[in-house]
C-alpha cells in the first residue's frame, strides 16, 4: 500500500486550456457568506450593496435566513447615491444599530458588492474607522465579494485573505501546521484526530470557529490547503513567511492519502508510522467508494464552471471511480496549486476556464455526457433535455473531504444516475 503520488505522466499538465468569454452562469463571492457565517460563530457579515445582493443571499440561503442568521445587507438607497446622505455616516449608523442589537458579535466583516465597488465606497477605511470606534468589543474588517471581482468560492478566499494580516505572530520554536479553508466541523475534527495520531503537536485550522481563536502564523508555519480556491489567502500567508505544502486535495481515498502524506513528509513523520495511522481510514474510504464504482465506471462526466473544485473532483472521479471526464470547466484555473491534480487527469480531458454559457451548452448537447455537473439555473433545463445532472452547489455545502466522506462524495455523483435508472415514468 503506497500512498498515491502524482504518476510520472503529464496528464493535463501541458494540455491547452479553452478560454472563452461570454455570459457566465455563476454565483458571485457574496454566496460564500452562507457557509462562512456558520463556521465562524461570533462573526457577522454585513454586505454593503443593493436589493439584488439581499435577494441573492436570501435565495441562496433558503430557509437559513430565518434562523437569526449572522449576515445582512445594508441596502444602498437613492438618497445615498444622490449624495443626500453621506454613505459613510449611513454605514456607521447601520453598524452601530447592528452591534447594539447583537452585542455577541466579535468580528464584523463589511463585505463589498458590485454597487459599492462601482461607486467606490471605501470600505477598508470605513472598517478602520469603525474598528477604532468599537475597539475592545468588535473587530471590523472588510473584503469584496462582488461579482465583478469574485466568483462563488472566491468569496471565501477574499474573506480569509483579509483575516491573514490580523493573525497573531507565531513565536513558538516548533513549526506548526495550518489547515487552510473552512471545513464542516465534523471533517475538521476527523483531520485533527488523524494529525494527532501522526504525532503532529501543533495543528490549527484556519478559519477557526471563533474570532479570538484564529491561528498564529510565522516563518515556521507550514500550511496545507484544504480547498483549491484559496489563491489570495495562500499568497497572504506566504507574505507572512509561511510555506505552502504542495499536495493533492483531500477528495477520495487517494486524494486524502496524498494530502496527509504531503504534511507527514514535511514534518518528517516516519513512513511506517504514517501508513499504520492512515490504513484504517483509507480502507474504509475504499470500501465506501466501491459501492458506487459499478454504477459510475465508464460513465462520461462534464463539469460546468462553478467553484474551482471541478478539477480535483474530476481527478477523483476519473482515478478512483473510473469515470471519463469529457470537459472540466472551472471559473478560474490556479495552475500552481492544481499542478498535481492536472497531472492526474486523463490526457483527453478538455480543460476550460471561464465561460460562454451558450457555447458551452452547445458542447454539452453535442457530447451528451452521462452526467453533467452544473448550477441550479441549468440543472432542470438540462434534465428536461434528457441529460442527467448533478447540481454543483451541494458539493460546497456538504462534507466531502477526507476518508470518511469519500463514500458520500461518490454517492453524490451516483445518486442522479441511480435515480434515472429507478424511475419508470
Amino acid at each position: 500500500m503506497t500512498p498515491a503520488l502524482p504518476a510520472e505522466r503529464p496528464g493535463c499538465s501541458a494540455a491547452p486550456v479553452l478560454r472563452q468569454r461570454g455570459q457566465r452562469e455563476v454565483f458571485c463571492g457574496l454566496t460564500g457568506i452562507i457557509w462562512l457565517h456558520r463556521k465562524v460563530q461570533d462573526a457577522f457579515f454585513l454586505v454593503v450593496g443593493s436589493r439584488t445582493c439581499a435577494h441573492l443571499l436570501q435565495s441562496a440561503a433558503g430557509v437559513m435566513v430565518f434562523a437569526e442568521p449572522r449576515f445582512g445587507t445594508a441596502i444602498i438607497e437613492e438618497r445615498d447615491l444622490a449624495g443626500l446622505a453621506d454613505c459613510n455616516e449611513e454605514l456607521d449608523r447601520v453598524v452601530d444599530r447592528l452591534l447594539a442589537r447583537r452585542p455577541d458579535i466579535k468580528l464584523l466583516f463589511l463585505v463589498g458588492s458590485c454597487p459599492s465597488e462601482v461607486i467606490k465606497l471605501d470600505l477598508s477605511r470605513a472598517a478602520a474607522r469603525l474598528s477604532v470606534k468599537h475597539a475592545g468589543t468588535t473587530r471590523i474588517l472588510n473584503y469584496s465579494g462582488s461579482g465583478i471581482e469574485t466568483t462563488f468560492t472566491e468569496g471565501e478566499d477574499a474573506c480569509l485573505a483579509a483575516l491573514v494580516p490580523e493573525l497573531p505572530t507565531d513565536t513558538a520554536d516548533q513549526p506548526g501546521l495550518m489547515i487552510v479553508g473552512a471545513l464542516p466541523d465534523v471533517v475538521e475534527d476527523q483531520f485533527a484526530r488523524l494529525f494527532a495520531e501522526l504525532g503532529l503537536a501543533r495543528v490549527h485550522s484556519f478559519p477557526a470557529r471563533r474570532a479570538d481563536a484564529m491561528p498564529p502564523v510565522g516563518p515556521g508555519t507550514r500550511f496545507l490547503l484544504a480547498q483549491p480556491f484559496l489563491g489570495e489567502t495562500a499568497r497572504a500567508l506566504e507574505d507572512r513567511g509561511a510555506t505552502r505544502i504542495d499536495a493533492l486535495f483531500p477528495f477520495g481515498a487517494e486524494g486524502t492519502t496524498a494530502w496527509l502524506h504531503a504534511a507527514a513528509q514535511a514534518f518528517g513523520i516516519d513512513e511506517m508510522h504514517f501508513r499504520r495511522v492512515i490504513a484504517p481510514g483509507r480502507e474504509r474510504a475504499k470500501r465506501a467508494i466501491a459501492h458506487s464504482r459499478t454504477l459510475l465506471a465508464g460513465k462520461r462526466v462534464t463539469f460546468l464552471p462553478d467553484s474551482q473544485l471541478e478539477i480535483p473532483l474530476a481527478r477523483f472521479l476519473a482515478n478512483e471511480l473510473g469515470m471519463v471526464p469529457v470537459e472540466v470547466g472551472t471559473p478560474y484555473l490556479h495552475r500552481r496549486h492544481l499542478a498535481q491534480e492536472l497531472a492526474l487527469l486523463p490526457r483527453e480531458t478538455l480543460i476550460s476556464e471561464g465561460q460562454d454559457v451558450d457555447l458551452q451548452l452547445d458542447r454539452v448537447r453535442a457530447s451528451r455526457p452521462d452526467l453533467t455537473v452544473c448550477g441550479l439555473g441549468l440543472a432542470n433545463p438540462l434534465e428536461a433535455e434528457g441529460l442527467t445532472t448533478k447540481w454543483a452547489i451541494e458539493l460546497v455545502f456538504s462534507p466531502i473531504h477526507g476518508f470518511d466522506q469519500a463514500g458520500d462524495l461518490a454517492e453524490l455523483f451516483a445518486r442522479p444516475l441511480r435515480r434515472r435508472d429507478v424511475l419508470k415514468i
Partner: protein
Amino acid sequence: MQLTVWTYEGPPHVGAMRIATAMDGVHYVLHAPQGDTYADLLFTMIERRGKRPPVTYTTFQARDLGKDTAELFQKAARDAFARFAPAAMLVGASCTAELIQDDPAGLVEAMNLPCPVVALELPSYQRKENWGAAETFYQLVRKLAAGTTPARGARPSANILGPTALGFRHRDDVIEITRLLDRLGIAVNVTAPLGASPADLARLGDADFNICLYPEIADTACRWLERQFGQKTVRTVPIGHGATCDFVAEVAALAGVDAGAVLDTSNLPWWSRSVDSTYLTGKRVFIFGDATHAIAAARVARDELGFTVVGLGCYNREFARDLREAARLYGVEPLITDDYLEVEEAIQALQPELVLGTQMERHIAKRLRIPCAVISAPVHVQDFPARYSPQMGFEGANVLFDTWVHPLVMGLEEHLLTMFRDDFEFSDHAGASHLGHGTPAEIVAAPVQAASGWSAEAERELLKIPFFVRGKARRNTERYATELGIAAITLETLYDAKAHYAR
C-alpha cells in the same frame, strides 16, 4: 442605507424577468455583473421550470469596466438575437449597470434589430420586483398594442391580465377563471403575460373588456388599455366564495350574459356552516402579504369562516391606500412595511391564533408556535404544488378552506388536548397530531417575557394551559398584573386575568 436580512420583494429587474419568462418569444438582455444570474434558479428551482429563463446577461467583470461594457452589451444583444430569434426583445440594466450608465436603450437603438425592442427604465434603488413586473408588462403592451385596430367578435370576450412566472398559484388561477368564463359563454381573447406571445399582445384590443386578475402586475396596463381601446376593467379579485360571486356578477353584467349558470358551486359555505366548524368562531387571525391577497383573505376570514381579523398588512407600498381602506373595514391598524421584524413584533404583540401570510410569516409563526397558512408570495418551492390548487374561483374557495383550517388544532382534538393533557399522548411534547413537522424540542419556544414575579404555583398552573394558547395567557396575565400594579403573580392573578380578558 437600510439594514435588511429578509426582503419580501426582489429588485425590479427580477420583475421584468418574471414577465419575459412568462411569455413566449420574448427575450430579455440584461446588462448585469457576473453573479446576477442567480435569479435564474428562482425559475428553474422554485417554479421547477424545465427551460432556462429567456434572459441573456452581459455578466461584466471588473476588468471590463470602462469603455468595454457598452460593446459587451451590444455583443450580448446581437448574439441573443441570432441564437433565440425572439419576436420582441427587452433590454435593461440591473442595479450595478444602472450605476455605470451605459444606456442600453441608446445602445440597442443604434443596432437596428429587426424586432420590436422595449428599453426598460427600472430604477433599482427606488423600486422593487412587483413594480418592475408591472412596468415591464405595461411597456410591452404599449409598444405592441398601440396603433392596432381592434376587431371585436360576436361572442363576448375578455383578456385575463396579470398572471406571470413565479406568481403565487397563477397557473391554476388562470385555469379556474378561464373555466368560469367559459361556462358564462365568454371567450378568453388573450391571457397575458403568462403564455402570451408578442403577437397576442398586439390583439389585446379585440376583447370587450379586461380582467385585472393581479392588480400588482396588471393595473398599469389595464389603465392604459381603458384609455386606448375604451375597454372596461373588472377589478373584483375572485378570491373566496363571496368575491367570486361578485366577480361573476360584474363580469356577467359587462358581457351581458346570465350569471345564474355558475353560481354556488363551492363547498365552502356548507363546510363553514357545518357544526364541525363552530369552534372556528372568533379565532383571532393575523393577515399579511401582498395587498391583493391580504385584502381578499380578510374578507374570507371574517365573512366566510367567522374568524376575527386582528391584524392586516401588506409589504407593497404601491397598494397601501387600498389596504388602509380595508383595515378600516375590520377596525384594525394597517401595517404597511417591508421590514419583517416589524411584522414579527406585530404578531408577537397580537398573539393571534392563526397567521395567514407569506413564507416569512410561516417562519415567524413557527418560531412563535402559532398555526399558519400561506396566502401570498414570496413563497418557497412547496407552494408551487404539482396538484391543482387555485386560490381563485369556487375551487379556489375550497382550497382556501382546507388550507386555512388544517393548521388549526381541530375542534375535537383541541378538547382532547385540554381534557387529557396529563396523558402522555396528549402532553405538550406530543403536540397536535397534524402539526408533526419536527419534534417540539426543535422549535424555539415563544419568546415570552422571563417569568419575573410568577409564583411557583401560578407557573405550574400556566403549564396546564395548552401550549397553543399559553403564550397569550402569560402575556395577558402579565399585562393585567402590570396595569394593576401587582408585583407577585399568584393563582388568583392568573384567573382574574383570564376573567378580565374573557371574550
